[in-house]
């Protein structure tokens, strides 16, 4: 059969045209996405990678709310200069509890995947509330409101942990029970700093 004849048929029957588009446009997804999603290899946590504790989880959701990933990647590529600058390159298993993933697509600011422990909590706090107090040339926005609000003002932490447990994050009943107490008295900036300080912990050490 000739392609031109097939085309003649497709463009005369809207049902066939729709079917043709569906078929042709789905192949790429079937090849790349389906195996990636169904293959366990990409979802197995790396050694030392555990679900976020309630404080870090809350901090992570603040990171998402403020779209930090617009300017900061969390993905150290296996390139010499990148490993020298940021530390060991990122592995798939380190992100097994990241919903959604926050690798980002742009580095207006530096990568943060290995930032955990590099600076003190006190520095992060100053820097988040007023970046130019410590980095004069910085073009990062200031986030003064983070210091003014309780970390979990919506009271959502238990619902969040239960939702994640349904997706396979191994939170115990006791952990969920104790979560609000862990957040008691903390502000948003405390939670965000806790999240940042935990970043990349499972892959630290041994940077060349």
């Amino acid at each position, binding site marked *: 059969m*000739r*392609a*031109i004849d097939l085309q003649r048929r497709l463009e005369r029957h809207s049902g066939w045209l729709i079917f043709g588009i569906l078929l042709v446009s789905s*192949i790429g997804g*079937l*090849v790349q996405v*389906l*195996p990636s999603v*169904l*293959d366990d*290899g*990409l979802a197995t946590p790396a050694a030392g990678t555990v679900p976020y504790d309630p404080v870090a989880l809350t901090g992570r959701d603040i990171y998402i709310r403020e779209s930090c990933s617009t300017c900061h990647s969390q993905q150290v590529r*296996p*390139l*010499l200069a990148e*490993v020298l*600058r940021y*530390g060991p*390159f990122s592995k*798939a298993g380190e992100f097994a509890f990241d919903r959604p993933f926050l690798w980002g697509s742009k580095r207006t600011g530096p990568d943060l995947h290995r930032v955990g*422990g*590099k*600076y*003190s*909590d*006190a*520095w992060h706090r*100053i*820097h988040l509330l007023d970046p130019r*107090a*410590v*980095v*004069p040339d910085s073009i990062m926005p200031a986030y003064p409101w983070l210091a003014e609000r309780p970390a979990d003002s919506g009271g959502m932490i238990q619902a969040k942990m239960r939702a994640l447990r349904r997706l396979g994050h191994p939170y115990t009943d006791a952990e969920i029970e104790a979560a609000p107490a862990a957040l008691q008295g903390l502000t948003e900036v405390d939670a965000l700093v806790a999240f940042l300080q935990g970043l990349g912990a499972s892959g*630290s*050490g*041994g*940077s*060349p």
Partner: protein
Amino acid sequence: MAELPGQFWSGWVLVLTLASLAGLVWLVFSLYFDGDQKTQDAGPIWDGNLREGEHPAPLWWFWLIFISLVISVIYLMLYPGLGAFSGALKWSQGGELHERLDRFSMEFGSTRRLVSEAKLETLREDARLMASAQRIYDRNCAVCHGYDAMGQADLFPNLRDADWQWGGDAAQIEQSIRHGRQAVMIGWLPVIGEQAVNQLTDYVLALGRGNAASHPGAQAYKSYCSACHGADGFGNVQLGAPNLTDGVSLYGSTREAIHQSIAEGRNGMMPAFGDRLDDTQIRLLVAWLSREGDDRQ
């Protein structure tokens, strides 16, 4: 080692990819070479003036897609792509990094080892090495201690003065960089009450001015502070207890700042960089930060 899919998915990827590429090739070949290029039926006219043109598709375009398909197939022969077939070159991104790191050690390894073992004086005399040291400082230390290393934010110490809370000789600086520091001063307000805190604040201010002799706070100082800061207030670098007599105060020299330090305590923290920096980098930083003295005579 490249991450490759399991057997079933490998076959799935291989078959669907090759079959669909073959379909694309068929489409292109059939449209170009079905021997029917000229005889185009007139076709309908949509919306008054929209018609299909009768020109054959240009041959250069055929070559464009043909060549890109050939390149693709060659690439998929050489590199991982077709399921579990890891490619003739056995390339993986981790492997590529290892190769780069090997080349890095071949190119710079001996120089860097020499640097890590060199005398500090020698390093200090080499302007190019000091430029490298400053680069290391800028990348790792400057956001806290300032790009001029003069400290900032009433929280991060000045590294350009003679006042080193944890000691300023080379070994002590190296220790600070490699393992970090954690200061522990408790808040005294709940222990001794507001009146005593006020008295101590005045005493520390007087110590800084050098006129603490016969100050009424001396007794309280001796009871609560001298164990760490010393009987005369000269501090103790082993504990990171700062000298109180030199008029330099990390957290600010105002009465309010000193009052706050005593009442609420201070827990200055320097992270450990032993995992982030190698021996060469630490050696260069020590040389750049310390002015004289060497622990490896």
